[in-house]
């Protein structure tokens, strides 16, 4: 039973928007490092059971790790907007739906980055990613600033995002990422 109205709305919306065959993994709640690692392990087991290819499994684990660790680092405490992560299967492959509350400044930065990564020519993405990896610096908190670019690169730029205004100058940031076969 999903108690959060928002979460049930999101699930209903997803089911009507996309041709979901099955939800493979559903999580909502506050995250920490151990929860992320355990979630990725469970996702891996589920994908192996469903006989997905090694590439799909690795890609899903890497993208999921980036999404979940980003949420862990940037999640705002908001009991009405708990972070969520769903992994679903469709005829065309897998889809990740994730969301969390973010600040106004967070919205500005994420919107700018995702818009830029979406606009890059597909054939240039490897070169752009390689260049960013070579120039990146890991800061004292362990951030390399490559997470969103990594998601864009690995998904073949198949992602959508949305920001919904929420109380206390917060936004619900929804990110959908497709991992096609």
């Amino acid at each position, binding site marked *: 039973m999903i108690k959060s109205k928002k979460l049930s709305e999101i699930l209903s919306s997803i089911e009507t928007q996309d041709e979901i065959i099955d939800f493979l993994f559903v999580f909502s709640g506050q995250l920490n490092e151990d929860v*992320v690692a355990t979630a990725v392990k469970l996702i891996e087991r589920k994908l192996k059971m469903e006989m997905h290819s090694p590439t799909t499994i*690795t890609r899903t684990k890497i993208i999921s790790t980036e999404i979940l660790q980003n949420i862990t680092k940037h999640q705002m405490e908001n009991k009405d907007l708990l972070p969520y992560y769903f992994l679903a299967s469709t005829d065309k492959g897998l889809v990740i739906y994730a969301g969390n509350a973010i600040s106004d400044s967070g919205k500005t930065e994420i919107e700018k980055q995702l818009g830029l990564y979406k606009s890059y020519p597909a054939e240039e993405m490897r070169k752009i990613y390689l260049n960013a990896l*070579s120039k990146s610096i*890991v800061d004292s908190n*362990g*951030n390399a600033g*490559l997470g969103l670019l990594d998601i864009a690169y690995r998904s073949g730029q198949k992602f959508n995002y949305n920001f919904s205004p929420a109380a206390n100058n917060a936004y619900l940031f929804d990110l959908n990422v497709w991992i096609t076969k």
Partner: protein
Amino acid sequence: MEKIIIEGSLNTPEITIHSNPNYITIKGVCAPENPKKFFSEFIHQVEFLIADVKPLEITIHLDYFNTGSSRSLLDFLLIRANDAFKNITKVHWIVEGGDDDLFEAGKMLEELSGLPFHFKEI
């Protein structure tokens, strides 16, 4: 001959550091929340055990990684300042057969590090 084994965890790899012959093996998940801290401690252990310029071979067999670890791994492969890292003769990059993403990650590290990589599918 001396050996240090750093136990793996849910999000960090098991690491074996071996001196005389010099080799390092990194195996498992590499996605700590703070890769910089994790790699810094690991490099410190390497410098403690390996203090000569004899050939060093590195074997990397990752399950998956995060972007911070990818960059930290590159930083590790680019170290030339200490004797332990002056003579890296080969990097063995091991992937599961058909895993294009991990294979490609190795190709990128090969390009950026300039080190000789040997790719093996298991």
